[in-house]
Structures are given as structure tokens and as C-alpha cells.
């Protein structure tokens, strides 16, 4: 392990050497620079290894041979090693990235770069206040120097603005340091900290500390004193921006952390306040940004603000602080550096210009990895950090702060995922990305680092908190494996995926209780059946399998989750995977965005709910939800239920669903509708099983759920009635169906739950089938507008049969399985205490007929159009699963007991009363009876006899064509004018259309518009004038002082 | 009243004599002829300034002997309850008249009928060449007086043999008063 002094020494030595070098030999100078930077990275790397693997102890390095306070000392500990490594690695990679630029600039530029890095390292290492000041000034000068050397002309003014502010800052800092020294008699941080108590309360020291603190915090670019930083981020060379965002911020953060050590807990609230304000404001301002680098700048500010909040919560977080702060910091640093490097590869500065990356799957992967890191999604370090942070905050009751953090994070996710959507979906600019290897390599290193850190954090979390390392869980590993296999042809991957899912089911078959078995069956085997349709795809289908398998992995992990952490991680994984899947649709960009936002919003509620429930405990088994303290239990219930209901698209939270499901690819729609929605229901099952009925302010929450469910069912169905787009119709129908299932759950009795489960199974089968069928039709006809189709029954008989069986099943008409659901439903409501919500649900039932008839009529019956006369049946692989589903549906209709009987028994654990009796083929409840086999036989016998009779009577019937219809002795004009399909239920709209005004859409639209407009108006604060920025800083100081006092 | 109108109009258009069919007020009805070239300004004047807002009908008379078609544009002033008919004469051969469908959309229908039944062309009138009442007509326009409907019917339709035609007057006389003559 080399002395950390080498960090300083090497940089200085190399800089001076460069100065001696012949200016023309810039190649050699570049080589020296790289070697030096590599050496500088090597030093902390050695230390880090030493601390981590060899158990080395932190060391103090004393300069000038004297002990502090008489001399300056540097410290190399675990934190310092990690940070300096982060800084120097960023520097090294940036230097690599900057190859051309640096060689053009010559040795002066390289020297400045090295000095800057040296200064950042110095800030981290030093324990002396004045030394800190010196390093800060060095950093400022070298930063300004680097900016001066940037190519962008605008960077000049930005650099000058930076200098103005840094002049002010240094004035404050210096005066603060000197007064602190005056008050405490030392410049050494540790001495000052240990001697804090006697003079800590002295006003003079407090004022001095305030000056130092505010100066250092300003280096973190707090709101509103951060306009200058944004200008730099926007205008500087992206490699410099990467450096500032990752390295400089790291150093400054650590400086503030060290300073807080001196100031003590009294200053924590101030740090928290500044941090959270910055976090919220920066995210809000980022919303309307169109420039990529400025957006990243805002995001940087926000992230650093968040970390400042973490530092400010040190009193709560205690030992866990580094885990959280570092988790967020490395996520931020790695991602932000990577993104800035990426931005250098993209030609245009508009967000949509990033579509140029699309041709490079690896870069796309890099981008999304970075976005996931920034939004704290699993399996990256930020995820563990976020979980831990929320857990502790909720445990200690800092709920307002928690809420603000989550809101800010949601806004951040909003603009980041919107950007990602642009990249994947917008029209790619003409010029493609031409990344030289030396530019691309840093990006890849960052991605790799992100994943490695994710693994590392998983391990840390395992050691410290007993959580399972997500990257080691088999389903996730399986899913991620597809990233490596993405070069294979699609059918190979499909086979692998199906095999894997089926195999996993049979491996783990015995581990599930009956309820979970049903869900596992749907997720794994059901998913495998749906995947059969994917054989229809040709080529490699880059990105499909990792996304799909990520979703399935998440769902499997959800079913297998034991504690809240696993549950939540699985939830986020399945959300992320399904988001990618949905985003693959041709026009799905806005819908995928609203999906991910609603899902993340829901996820945050779940996160908060779990954290609140855990009350600070590191481990919280799902089953422990039942033992939550009565004071918080209803709130936990509310949070979790709302979170789960975003996934099941309860009314009000449903607006993401239609677009997302409708615009998805043919084989994706059944996955996200037939299967994914069940994840939300599973969550609700788990929640209700554990928590049961809860009352809040005397209102029974399950009763509220009942009303929500009823309205969801009614309005979902009603909206489906008025759709022209077949897939949208099905999507709205899903909303309605989920309303039914939710209703069953909320009934809180045995049969209600059984009914919900029946809906789970039924909905999986028929909605997958219908989406496949309609998807196949849309694929063949090139449209999803139903009125453009018509008369396809003869051309696509298999698809027709699937839809026919599907709609009979959905409508609940005997003898198919939908009737079973209705029968159990009636029995369930008879046993329930509530009556009024049923009214709504009764209305919803027949409404389903409307859209179902419309679906089958407009597509398959009626008049065939000219251009569709030669349409072929859906491709084999899309038709095959449909036929399997038809078989499944009939089997389930005949023998529902196969699936339900065990669950029925299992539910006795929760509701011993009111179960069903299964005798032979007959099913009996407390109220009635039902014999599916008898019904099926009776109906079949009557039906077949009549059909045979009719066929016999009409054996000589003349088969006619579509215009052979009576038309008041006239003839039809054209098929288009004869097919009655558009606005099919016009009278119904006249009567009940007022119920389906898009209130929810308007509300959410207004909310996002408001945020957007607010951000857009408020960011005019940054008028670009250096003097304004100086005033901002002064105002900031005054405000903080005022609030602080 | 109509006379006053006629006097007024005469200053503007070369009108012919006024033929008053019904004197009023109310319910006046009069006809006046004018050259085809002045029809449009006259119609506009009547419609916009004199309150004849309603085109009651547009019809034609075949003056076979004179070799002319007479077009009658019957306009109505509803507030004053009076009608005026403008007569325009055009040569029978290649009869063409400017369309007024832009003044009264309903005129298009009349013009279509005249096109079919008389063979008078109204260029640019919407759908003027489409079938109106007849479908697949193959002969000369049937309302022209030189069209021989009896001969046409005899040639085109199979008649029931043994059919006789009786003069109704004679027939009834014979039936009611069998004793006489």
C-alpha cells in the first residue's frame, strides 16, 4: 500500500514534468498523463483492497513531521480510499475519453486536469481546515482553468460566473475558518470536533461554523445558489462535466460530511433542509429541460441534494449512513459520469437526439443501466440505499421528509424515463453515433462498475441487514443471463426461456402453499404458454428476452418473497421488466412512460407502507403485517393497498393501462394483461391475508375498497364500450375485470376470495387468448380500429373461435367458466355485510356484453372489406396458444375443482366459515348449488341436437355472399358503408356517456402540466447573469441564516 | 304591386311584358320573360333585394314548333306572399343554360331532371348527368314533344294480346244509357 501522499505528489510531479516537456510532443505528454492518472488510481485501489480484504487499519499521514494541530495531517481510511478511487478513476476514464481534446490542448491542459484531480483527492484526504480551503481554491482554479480550455465558447462565460461565485464562497470559507480557529484554537478537524462541547455553543463559533458550512454547502450547488453550476454542466466538455458531477461532487460532499463532524447534530437539520429543497427544486426544474447536459446537471444537483439529506439524517441513520450515502453517491457518480460520456457521443443536444444511440444495443443497455442507477432501481446500490433510508426514516417517524424524498424521486424518474423513451422511440437523427473505442470504453467501464457495485451492495446489505443479494437470486440471474445471450436467434432464446420457466416451476413446485401455487402456475407455466406466441417473431429480437424474463423473474420472486425487502425488490424488478416490454410497442412511448410513473409511484407507496409497518426493523417478514401496531396499521394498509391498486389499475389510477396494453406488441399484450396484472392482485391477497379489515377514522377500509372496486368494474366496462380500438377495448375490459377481482377480495369472506382467485385464473386465460387473437388480427389487417375490419370469420376461423369462447367466458354465461365466477360472486355477496356497492357491480355485469359483442361483431362478423379479402389466418404460433387456451378454458369450466378445491381448503385458515362443499361434480355453498358438468352436458346435448336438426333441415341451403342481404329492394353500396360498427353504441353514449368523461386523465394531465409549468416558470430564476448568481448565493446565505436562527 | 316591381325591374333588365295570372295582394302571381344572359343578375336581384328568397320550381316547356325550350324559374316572396316566374327561351338544338345551383342548391335537382327529361344541359351543375328518374334510358329525352311514347311502348314492351281501348265517354254512355244510340 503506497502512501496516499503519492496522490498529491504524483500529480504535482507529473504536472511539472509536463511543463518541462517539449510542447509539440503532446502524444508523450498524454501518455505521461494517463500513466500518472492510472498510478493515482492504483494508490487508493491498493488501500481499498487492503481495507476490504486484508483488514488494514486507517492511517494518518502527518506532513512536516509534527502531530496536529501543529501540522497538517491526511487520513486514509475506507471512506477516503473509496472516494479517492472514485475520483481518480473518473479522472482516468475522462482523460481517456478526452484523448483528442487533451492532445490538442497540449500539456497545459493535462497538467490542469491532474491538478484538479489532485485537489479533489486532497479535499477528501485532508483533516485540516485551512488545507481544505487551499485544496478547494486549487480545485476552483483548476476547474475554471479546465473550463477555460473547453471548446464550447459559451463555457467561457460559465467559467467566469463560476469564478464570481467561488470568490464569494472562498471569502466566506476563509473568514469562517479563521474565526473557527480563533474560537477553538485549532485548525484540525478532529481536534476541533473533539473539543466541540465546551465552545460548541458559543455564538462566535457557531457563526464561524455557519460561514464555513454555508461556503462548503455552496460547493454542493444547493438551490437556489446553483445557476453557475448548471451553466458549466451544460457548456463544458462532457468529460469535464462528468468529472465535476462525479469527482468534484464526491469531494465536496465528503468535505461537508467532515465539517458536520465538527458542527455536530445541531447542524443536521440545516443540511437536511438545504438538501431536500435542492432535491425537489432541481428535479422540478429538470422536468421542462430540453437540453440533455443541462438536464443531467439538474439531476446531479438533485442527487447531491439527496445525499446531503442523508448526511443530515446522520443522527438517525448512524452507522448505516455510509452504506446509504455511498450507495447513493456511487450510483450517482457512476451513472452521471457515464451519461455525460454518452452525451459526448450524441451529436445533437436535444433529448430526442439521443435516438441516435438506438443503433448500438450496448450503449442502449448502458443508458438504461444508468437511468436505473439514478432512479434507485434494483439491483443497483441506490436501491439498497433507498430501501435502507426509507426504512429508517419511516421507523423514526420522519414521514414528511420521506414523502418529499419520494415525490422528488418520482419527478426525477419522470424525466429520466421520458428521456429513455425518447431514445428508444423517437426518430433517429441522420448522423449515427460514431464512438471511438477510447470514448466508448469509459462508458462500458462505468456500466460494469455499476453492476459490480450492485453486487457489492447486495453483499453489504446481506452482511449488515440480512437481505438476500438480489443478483444472486436464481430467477434474476436467469433473466440477466439473457443479456449475454442476446446475440442468439429469437427462437433459441424463446426455447431457453420456456424451458427455464417450466423447469423452475417443477423445481420449486413443492414450496408453494395452494394460493401461491396458483399464482406461480400462472406466472411460470402461464408465462411459458404465452411465450409460445413469441416463436412467431423472426430475427434476434434484441432486448425482448432480457426484458420479458426480468418481468417474469420479478413475478416469481414476488411469489417466493418472504420478507418485505424481497417483496419490494421483486416488485420493482417486474415493474422495470414490464416497462421495457411495453416500451417495445411501436407507438407506446407516452403510454410506457405513464405506466412506469404510475408503477413507480405505486412502488413508492408500497415502499413507504412496508417501512412504516416495519417500524425500523431490518427484517420484516410479510406475515408480520398482521402484527403491525394498531396506530399505524390502517395507514400501512392504505399505502400498500393504493400501491397494489396502481398495478391493478383501479379507477383513478388506471389511465396508464389502456395505452400500455394496447400499444404493446402482439405477444406482449397478453403478458402484461393476462399475467402482469395478477401481480397487483397477489399483493392485495397478501396484504388482506395478513392485515384483514382495518379502520381509519371509523371508516372501514375494505368497505372503501369495495366501492372503488365496484366503480372500477363499472367504469372500466363502460369505457371499453366506447372504444374503437380493439386492443384498447380489451385493455379497458381488463380494468373492469380487475375491479371484479378486487371486489371479491374486498368482500373479506371466504367466497369473495375464492371468486377473486377464480377471476385471476379466468382472466389470465381469456384475456391472454383475446389479446393474442386480436393481436393476430391486427397483425394481419394492419389496423386495430375495429370498424375497418369486419367479416373476418371465414378468413380467420381460429381467431374467431378464440374470441367467441373468450367472450362467452367473460360474459359469465353458462356453461363456460365465467359462470363459475359469477356463481361464486353471488354466493359471496349474500354472505357479505355490504349491500349497496353491489348495485354498481350489477350494472357493470351486463355492460360487459356490450363491448364483447362489439368486439366480435365488428371484427369477425358483418361485412368484409375490399382490402381485407385476402387476409390469412393468424400465424401458427399465435394461433397455437389460443387453441391451448380454448382447451384450458373448457377444462376449467368442466372441472373448476382441480384448481379451486385446494385453495378453498386453504382459505379455511382465514375464513373457516362459508366454504364450498365439493361432492362429485356438484359444488354446494351455504345458499345454492352448481354442477358444472351437468350444465355442460345439458347445454351440449340440447345445443347439438338442435344444431343437427337445423343442419338437416337446411341441408340444401344456398351459401350466399356478403351482399346477398335484403336491403329494402336495393343493394348495399360498399362494404364500408354497410358494416355498422363505428360508434356502435351511440345511444348508449347519449344515455350514460357522462359517466365516462375522462376525469382521471384530465386530473393527472393537469397535475403534470402544473409541475411542468411550475418548473418552467421557476427556472427563469436562472437568468444567465453572473451577478444574479452572486445575488442568489447571497440570498441563499441570508435565507439559510434566517431560517437557521 | 307586381306592376311596380315590373317597372322597377325594367329599368335594370330588358324584361318582356308582364303576364299577371293572379292579382293580389295577397297571392299575386305573374310571369315575365327575359333574355337568358340577364337571368342570373335578375335572380340575384330578386333574391337579395326584392325578397324572393325561395325557388319554388324550375321547369321547362317544349315549344317544338318555335324550336325553343322555355325555362320557367318560379320564385316566391314569402313575406309578401307573391310569386314571380321568370321565363327564358333557349334554342332547342343543343339547349344549354347556365346553372343556378349556387344560388339555390335545390336547383341542382331540377336541373338534373330537366337534363334527363328534356335534354337541356346545365354545365357544372352537381350530378347533372346522373340518372334521375329513369335508369338506363336509351332513347331521346322522353319529355320532348317529338318523342313518340306510344311507338316506344309498342316497340319496347310486350303487350297483352286482345287488349282494346275504349273512349271513356262513349263507354260510360253505352253502359249507363244502353238504350240510347
Amino acid at each position, binding site marked *: 500500500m503506497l502512501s496516499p501522499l503519492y496522490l498529491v505528489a504524483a500529480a504535482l510531479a507529473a504536472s511539472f514534468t509536463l511543463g518541462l516537456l517539449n510542447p509539440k510532443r503532446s502524444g508523450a505528454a498524454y501518455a505521461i498523463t494517463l500513466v500518472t492518472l492510472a498510478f493515482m488510481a492504483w494508490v487508493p485501489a491498493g488501500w481499498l483492497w487492503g481495507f476490504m480484504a486484508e483488514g488494514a487499519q486507517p492511517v494518518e499521514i502527518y506532513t512536516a513531521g509534527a502531530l496536529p494541530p501543529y501540522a497538517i495531517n491526511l487520513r486514509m481510511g475506507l471512506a477516503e480510499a473509496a472516494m479517492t478511487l472514485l475520483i481518480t478513476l473518473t479522472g482516468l476514464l475522462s482523460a481517456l475519453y478526452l484523448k483528442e481534446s487533451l492532445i490538442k490542448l497540449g500539456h497545459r491542459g493535462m497538467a490542469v486536469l491532474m491538478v484538479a484531480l489532485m485537489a479533489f483527492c486532497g479535499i477528501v484526504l485532508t483533516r485540516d481546515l485551512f488545507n481544505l480551503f487551499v485544496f478547494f481554491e486549487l480545485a476552483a482554479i483548476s476547474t475554471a482553468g479546465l473550463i477555460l480550455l473547453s471548446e464550447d465558447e459559451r463555457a467561457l462565460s460559465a467559467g467566469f460566473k463560476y469564478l464570481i461565485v467561488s470568490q464569494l464562497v472562498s471569502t466566506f470559507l476563509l473568514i469562517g475558518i479563521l474565526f473557527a480557529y480563533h474560537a477553538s484554537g485549532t485548525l484540525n478537524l478532529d481536534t476541533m470536533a473533539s473539543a466541540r462541547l465546551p465552545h460548541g455553543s458559543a455564538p462566535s463559533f457557531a457563526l464561524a461554523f455557519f460561514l464555513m458550512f454555508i461556503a462548503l454547502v455552496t460547493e454542493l450547488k444547493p438551490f437556489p445558489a446553483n445557476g453557475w453550476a448548471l451553466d458549466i454542466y451544460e457548456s463544458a466538455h462532457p468529460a469535464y462535466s462528468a468529472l465535476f458531477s462525479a469527482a468534484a461532487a464526491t469531494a465536496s460532499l465528503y468535505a461537508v460530511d467532515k465539517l458536520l463532524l465538527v458542527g455536530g447534530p445541531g447542524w443536521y437539520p440545516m443540511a437536511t433542509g438545504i438538501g431536500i429543497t435542492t432535491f425537489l427544486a432541481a428535479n422540478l426544474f429538470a422536468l421542462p429541460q430540453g437540453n440533455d447536459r443541462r438536464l443531467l446537471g439538474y439531476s446531479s444537483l438533485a442527487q447531491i441534494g439527496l445525499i446531503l439529506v442523508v448526511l443530515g439524517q446522520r443522527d438517525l441513520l448512524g452507522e448505516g449512513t455510509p452504506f446509504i450515502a455511498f450507495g447513493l453517491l456511487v450510483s450517482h457518480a457512476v451513472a452521471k459520469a457515464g451519461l455525460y460520456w454518452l452525451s459526448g457521443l450524441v451529436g445533437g443536444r436535444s433529448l430526442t437526439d439521443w435516438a441516435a444511440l438506438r443503433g448500438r444495443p450496448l450503449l442502449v443497455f448502458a443508458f438504461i443501466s444508468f437511468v436505473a442507477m439514478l432512479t434507485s432501481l434494483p439491483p443497483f446500490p441506490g436501491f439498497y440505499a433507498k430501501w435502507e433510508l426509507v426504512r429508517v426514516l419511516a421507523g423514526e417517524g420522519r414521514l414528511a421528509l420521506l414523502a418529499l424524498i419520494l415525490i422528488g424521486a418520482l419527478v426525477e424518474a419522470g424525466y429520466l424515463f421520458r428521456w429513455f423513451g425518447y431514445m428508444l422511440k423517437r426518430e433517429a437523427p441522420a448522423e449515427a453515433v460514431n464512438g471511438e473505442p477510447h470514448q466508448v470504453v469509459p462508458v462500458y467501464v462505468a456500466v460494469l462498475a455499476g453492476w459490480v457495485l450492485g453486487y457489492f451492495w447486495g453483499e453489504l446489505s446481506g452482511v449488515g441487514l440480512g437481505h438476500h443479494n438480489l443478483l444472486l437470486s436464481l430467477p434474476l440471474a436467469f433473466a440477466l443471463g439473457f443479456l449475454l445471450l442476446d446475440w442468439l436467434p429469437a427462437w433459441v432464446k424463446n426455447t431457453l426461456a420456456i424451458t427455464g420457466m417450466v423447469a423452475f416451476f417443477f423445481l420449486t413446485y413443492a414450496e408453494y402453499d395452494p394460493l401461491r401455487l396458483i399464482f406461480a402456475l400462472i406466472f411460470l407455466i402461464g408465462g411459458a404458454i404465452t411465450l409460445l406466441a413469441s416463436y412467431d417473431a423472426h430475427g434476434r429480437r434484441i432486448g425482448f428476452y432480457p426484458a420479458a424474463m426480468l418481468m417474469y423473474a420479478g413475478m416469481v420472486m414476488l411469489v417466493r418473497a418472504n420478507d418485505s425487502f424481497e417483496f419490494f425488490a421483486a416488485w420493482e424488478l417486474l415493474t422495470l421488466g414490464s416497462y421495457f416490454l411495453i416500451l417495445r410497442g411501436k407507438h407506446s412511448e407516452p403510454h410506457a412512460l405513464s405506466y412506469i410513473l404510475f408503477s413507480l409511484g405505486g412502488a413508492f407507496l408500497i415502499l413507504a407502507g412496508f417501512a412504516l409497518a416495519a417500524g425500523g426493523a431490518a427484517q420484516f417478514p410479510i406475515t408480520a403485517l398482521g402484527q403491525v401496531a394498531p396506530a399505524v396499521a390502517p395507514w400501512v394498509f392504505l399505502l400498500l393497498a393504493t400501491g397494489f391498486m396502481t398495478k391493478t389499475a383501479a379507477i383513478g389510477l388506471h389511465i396508464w393501462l389502456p395505452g400500455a396494453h394496447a400499444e404493446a406488441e402482439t405477444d406482449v399484450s397478453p403478458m402484461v394483461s393476462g399475467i402482469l396484472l395478477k401481480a397487483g392482485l397477489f399483493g392485495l391477497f397478501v396484504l388482506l391475508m395478513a392485515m384483514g379489515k382495518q379502520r381509519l377514522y371509523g371508516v372501514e377500509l375494505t368497505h372503501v375498497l369495495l366501492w372503488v372496486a365496484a366503480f372500477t368494474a363499472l367504469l372500466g366496462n363502460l369505457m371499453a364500450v366506447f372504444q374503437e380500438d380493439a386492443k384498447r377495448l380489451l385493455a379497458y375490459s381488463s380494468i373492469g375485470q380487475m375491479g371484479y377481482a378486487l371486489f371479491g377480495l374486498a368482500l373479506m369472506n371466504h367466497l369473495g376470495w375464492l371468486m377473486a382467485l377464480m377471476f385471476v385464473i379466468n382472466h389470465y386465460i381469456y384475456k391472454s387468448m383475446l389479446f393474442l387473437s386480436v393481436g393476430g388480427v391486427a397483425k394481419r389487417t394492419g389496423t386495430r380500429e375495429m370498424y375497418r375490419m369486419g367479416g373476418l370469420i371465414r378468413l380467420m376461423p381460429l381467431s374467431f373461435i378464440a374470441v367467441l369462447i373468450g367472450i362467452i367466458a367473460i360474459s359469465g354465461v353458462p356453461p363456460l367458466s365465467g359462470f363459475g365466477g359469477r356463481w361464486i360472486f353471488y354466493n359471496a355477496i349474500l354472505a357479505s355485510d355490504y349491500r349497496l356497492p353491489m348495485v354498481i357491480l350489477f350494472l357493470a355485469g351486463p355492460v360487459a356484453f356490450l363491448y364483447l359483442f362489439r368486439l366480435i361483431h365488428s371484427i369477425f362478423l358483418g361485412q368484409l372489406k375490399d382490402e381485407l379479402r385476402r387476409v390469412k389466418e393468424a400465424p401458427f404460433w399465435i394461433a397455437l396458444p389460443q387453441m391451448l387456451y380454448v382447451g384450458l378454458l373448457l377444462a376449467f369450466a368442466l372441472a373448476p375443482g382441480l384448481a379451486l378445491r385446494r385453495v378453498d381448503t386453504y382459505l379455511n385458515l382465514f375464513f373457516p366459515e362459508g366454504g364450498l362443499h365439493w361432492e362429485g361434480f356438484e359444488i354446494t355453498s351455504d345458499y345454492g348449488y352448481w354442477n358444472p358438468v351437468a350444465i355442460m352436458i*345439458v347445454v351440449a346435448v340440447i*345445443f347439438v341436437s338442435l344444431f343437427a336438426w*337445423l343442419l338437416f333441415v337446411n341441408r340444401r*341451403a*344456398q351459401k350466399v355472399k356478403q351482399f346477398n342481404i335484403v336491403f329494402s329492394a336495393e343493394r348495399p353500396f360498399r362494404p364500408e358503408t354497410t358494416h355498422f360498427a363505428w360508434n356502435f353504441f351511440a345511444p348508449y353514449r347519449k344515455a350514460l356517456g357522462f359517466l365516462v368523461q375522462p376525469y382521471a386523465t384530465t386530473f393527472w394531465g393537469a397535475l403534470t402540466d402544473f409541475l411542468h409549468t411550475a418548473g418552467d416558470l421557476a427556472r427563469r430564476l436562472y437568468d444567465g447573469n453572473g451577478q444574479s448568481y452572486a445575488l442568489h448565493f447571497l440570498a441563499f446565505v441570508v435565507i439559510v441564516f434566517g431560517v437557521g436562527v | 304591386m307586381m306592376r311596380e316591381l315590373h317597372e322597377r325591374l325594367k329599368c335594370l333588365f330588358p324584361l318582356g311584358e308582364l303576364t299577371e295570372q293572379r292579382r293580389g295582394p295577397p297571392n299575386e302571381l305573374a310571369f315575365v320573360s327575359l333574355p337568358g344572359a340577364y337571368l342570373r343578375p335578375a335572380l340575384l336581384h330578386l333574391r337579395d333585394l326584392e325578397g324572393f328568397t325561395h325557388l319554388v320550381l324550375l321547369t321547362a316547356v317544349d315549344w317544338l314548333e318555335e324550336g325553343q325550350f322555355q325555362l320557367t324559374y318560379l320564385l316566391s316572396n314569402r313575406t309578401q306572399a307573391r310569386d314571380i316566374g321568370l321565363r327564358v327561351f333557349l334554342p332547342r338544338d343543343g339547349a344549354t343554360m347556365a346553372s343556378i345551383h349556387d344560388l339555390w342548391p335545390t336547383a341542382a335537382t331540377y336541373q338534373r331532371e330537366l337534363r334527363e327529361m328534356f335534354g337541356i344541359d346545365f354545365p357544372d351543375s352537381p350530378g347533372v348527368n346522373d340518372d334521375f328518374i329513369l335508369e338506363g334510358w336509351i332513347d331521346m329525352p322522353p319529355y320532348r314533344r317529338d318523342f313518340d311514347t306510344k311507338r316506344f311502348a309498342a316497340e319496347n314492351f310486350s303487350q297483352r294480346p286482345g287488349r282494346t281501348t275504349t273512349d271513356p265517354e262513349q263507354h260510360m254512355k253505352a253502359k249507363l244509357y244502353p238504350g240510347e244510340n
Partner: protein
Amino acid sequence: MQFDWMKIPYALLTLFIVVNFGMILTALVAKIAARVGRRRGIRIWQNYADLFKNYGLRSSITHGAMFYLGPVFRLTGGIGLLLFVPTIYGSYVFSNLSFAGDLILALYFIFFGTLGMALGAAESGHPHAAIGVSRGLSQVTTAELPLALAVFSVALQYHTLSVTAIVAAQQGGIEHWTLFTNPFAVAAAMLAFLGSMMRPPFDVVSAPQEIPIGPPTEYHSSYLAMMQTNRAIFPIAKIVVYMNLFFGGAASWPVFCLKVFLIYMVSVFIGVVFPRFRVEQSIRWFLIWALPLGVLAIVLV
């Protein structure tokens, strides 16, 4: 499971009786309506002539597979509904096939024929058929609502979903009928009944002067005959459900005939007095007048 094979001939016997009763009943009703209009009206056996004629038509056309299935669905719905409900209370012979399911089965089986008919009609490609279906389905959504509420109320009242048990609970005098023990439910259900009988004011579905004649526009010969058969069975089957739920059921055929006739006449009386509603009017009517009754029924039971 033991299955009594005699149930099949018994069921067929019920079917036979009901078909003939239905044929005569509808003719009788038409005749009564004619007499109100001072006409003699059709002959009492007219329905048979029409039926035979339609079965006896020599030629027919077909628009495709669903065109066949439409009437089959329709008639299956009618026969099924009839057979899933016991016709005569206390009679094993006329308990039909009610072992297959309870009231809910009957309630949902009503839709079987409607749905199938709609599909068959739509297959013909005739716009009037689609328009008729659109109207019919729209109307049914709110027309069925009071019935559903009434059934819910009755099931709550008697604590069972078994039709036989519900009838049994109403035995022992007219004052035990649901009509008197749960008048709101009956009122709501009878309003729903009007909506389901295809008579004015709720007959806009077939609207003879406007969209001749709605869904069955293209149907003829034996297809039509099958639907005519259903028209004889289905109203009776539906009325049987009403009778069993609300009017004490019937313990013998004469009582059965009387009650069915009287219930049928309710819709006839209303029908000859009121003009036709448009779809949105009837939807509003059901929501404003029938729905509150239904809600009262379930709240007060």
C-alpha cells in the same frame, strides 16, 4: 353420481306442454289485443300454421356458420332456461333438470340465447341486425339491473339461491308470496320484466317501422321457425322464474297456466297503452324509476 334417466322423458314432457301452451298463449294474447282494437284477430291455431309453414319452406340460404348457430343458441337458451328451473312445485316429474344449478344459473342462462342470437344476426352482415343488437344490448344493461337487485333481495330474504326452496318458503297462503313479503323487490323485478318482453314501450330493438325488423332481418324458413319456437318457450320460461320467485310458484298445471297468463298480461297491458321509447330514454327510465326500487329492495330486506 346417480342420474335418473327418466328425467329426460320428463323434461321432454315439460317441454312439450310448454311449447304448446306458449303457442296458444301468444295467439290468445294477440287475439285479446285484436279484440281491444275491435278486430277478430288471428285464429287461435295461427301460430301452428306459421310455424309449419316456416319449417316447410323448401329453400333457404345461409350466411355462414354463425348464421346457423344464432337460432340454435336462441332456442337452446330458451329450452335450457325452462329446464334448469322446476316448473311445478313439489312435482318430481316437472322438476326438470334443476339439479344442475340454482337461481344464478337461470339468471345467467337468460343471456345465452341473447348473445348467440346477436352473433348469428351479426353474421348475416345486415346493418339492421347490428343496429338492433346495439339497441337491444344497450337496453338490457339497465333493464336487467332491477331484476338482479330483486333476485339479490329475494335470495337475502329467503337465505337461499335454490328456486325450489324459495317457492317452498312462499307456500301456505297468498300472504306468503314475495309479492307481499318483499313488495319493492317484486316491483323492481316487474319493471325489469317489461324491459325484457320486447313489447312497447321497450321494443325499439326490432322497431318494425324503422329498422325492419332488427336482429332477425335475414332469418327465414327453418331458422325463423326455430326462433318462433323459442318465442313460444322463452317468455314462459322467464315467467316461470318470476312466478317461482315472486308469486308463490305453481303446484299444478292449471295454476301454472293462470299465473303465467296473468304475468304475461302485465306486459301486454302496459304495451298497448304506451308508445315506444328510444334507447336512451328507456335506459334513463330504468335508472330513474326501476333502479331506486331495486335499491330499496336490497336495503330494506
